[in-house]
């Protein structure tokens, strides 16, 4: 079985993102970019399935700018076997919408005859949380989102999902799309020898038009603004003072 793992290049989670003064977007200049953390978890899970003999090949795919090659090399260094970059834009600030990404991924999944896709549950830049579900819909596959535990068995997968009420356990028929939650695993660090080896692994470069997919966005950004700021508060001297403020000043108790 082949596993496709979509990986997205995003602004590193440690970066404090700033809105551009002209309100057209956020600042990308000189900002550290990394693999979306949920996608590291996805790569890790796929590689573990391969190590356990449940998969033959792990294919990392990224849709975006040429620089997303770096993200794919990271996936290869973590243990993916090959990578596909779909160049869909040459502007880092142009984000390809999940619907278009899902259409491109569908084409890859079909061309590779993959049996499982493991996506991140959400990209931490746009926080849409939609690509995996959209891909499952387009393929007519089942979906196991927000996975906390994944057990792949014959023809199906048992997925423990992190849901609002706690945990939900479902069995999904394979092929399926799984999306990762934070507690699925702890991704490994790529070792230096593996980073060197990754440079020799195959990385195909394609373009969105190779797949005949129209990536024209359906949503247009009207403006991007700073969130409202909170006014500065006060430091209180003791638990007793805090209790007093809450009871007599804040009006919340």
């Amino acid at each position, binding site marked *: 079985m082949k596993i496709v793992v979509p990986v997205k290049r995003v602004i590193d*989670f440690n970066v404090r*993102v700033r809105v551009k003064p002209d309100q057209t977007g*956020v600042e990308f200049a000189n900002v550290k970019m990394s693999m979306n953390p949920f996608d590291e978890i996805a790569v890790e899970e796929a590689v573990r399935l391969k190590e356990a003999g449940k998969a033959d090949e792990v294919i990392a795919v990224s849709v975006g700018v040429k620089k997303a090659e770096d993200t794919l090399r990271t996936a290869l260094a973590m243990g993916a076997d090959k990578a596909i970059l779909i160049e869909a834009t040459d502007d880092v600030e142009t984000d390809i919408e*999940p*619907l278009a990404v899902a259409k491109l991924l569908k084409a890859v999944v079909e061309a590779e005859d993959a049996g499982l896709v493991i996506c991140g549950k959400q990209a*931490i*830049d*746009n*926080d*849409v*949380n*939609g*690509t*995996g*579900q*959209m891909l499952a*819909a*387009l393929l007519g*596959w*089942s*979906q196991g*989102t927000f996975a*906390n535990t994944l057990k792949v068995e014959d023809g199906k997968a*048992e997925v423990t*999902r*992190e*849901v609002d*009420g*706690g*945990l*939900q*356990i*479902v*069995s*999904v*028929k394979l092929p399926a799309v799984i999306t990762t*939650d*934070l507690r699925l695993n702890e991704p490994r660090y790529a070792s230096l020898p593996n980073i060197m080896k990754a440079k020799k692994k195959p990385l195909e470069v394609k373009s969105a038009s190779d797949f005949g997919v129209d990536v024209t*966005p*359906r*949503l*247009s*950004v*009207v*403006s991007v*603004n*700073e*969130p409202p700021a*909170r006014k500065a*508060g*006060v*430091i*209180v001297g003791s*638990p007793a003072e*805090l*209790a007093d*403020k809450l009871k007599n000043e*804040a009006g*919340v*108790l």
Partner: protein
Amino acid sequence: MAVLVFAEHDGKVLSEAVAKTVTAATQMGGPVHVLISGTGAGDVAGEAAAIAGVEKVLTAEDAGYDHALAEPLGDLIVGLAGDYDHIVLAASTTGKNVGPRVAALLDVMIVADIIGVESADTFVRPIYAGNAIQTVKSSDAKKVVTVRTTAFEAAGEQAAVGIESHGATAAGGLSEWLDDRFAQSERPELTSARIVVSGGRALGSADNFKLVEQLADKLGAAIGASRAAVDAGYAPNDWQVGQTGKIVAPDLYIAVGISGAIQHLAGMTGSKVIVAIDKDEEAPIFKVADYGLVADLFEAVPALIEALDD
């Protein structure tokens, strides 16, 4: 054209998110119809019929829709979509699971996690963990939208409108529900509670986390946690507050031993009053706190519980 709101319920009561989702739906246009699916849909339909702004309630009682599995539910909603311009779900784990599936089946983009409605096609949503607020306009013929319910007031009540049963049956086969591990609790629900007390890594153990629970119980509050506390096993996953957990906006949020990473702040800066208790005066949580207490939590929290009694 009309707006379809998908309503969640547990077989006995309607989710508190529904009345808030209806408020957002009303702002997109009207009339608003509410869809309730699965066993017990008929029993809770009356509650939905009495939410102000609702014109009609549709029920699809088939047990195949139980547990809100995305595949049958997606088909059900897509089957009804012809009559609607907007399909609106709460941005709960169910809404996030089903909404994008419905959108893709209709070949439209999902408009996720909105906090405002500017017009029928223009919506406001946070991006980058709330560090930026984006206004987007959809050019799709149909809009599939998930709503951050903490950003909308609950709609009021009205004399009940009509309830129609929709005879759809779920096609099974793609996925199957096996089990729910839901802790039963007498405490208020986290995303709609008036007061939330959250604990972080500083608690150090599941046993110590009881201190947070004691303070919460003293205040009749719901309990939250940072990701670090959940990862370490001090608190269950459904208590995680933040960018990738739950979004809360209570009247009072008390953060205990939480440093205030942006991913955590993304989930709670909509709170009216924020209290932070942390021993590090440099902790970023103090930048958003209305009341900060620089202290060791193991002394401060018991003292606060006592002081609240006086």
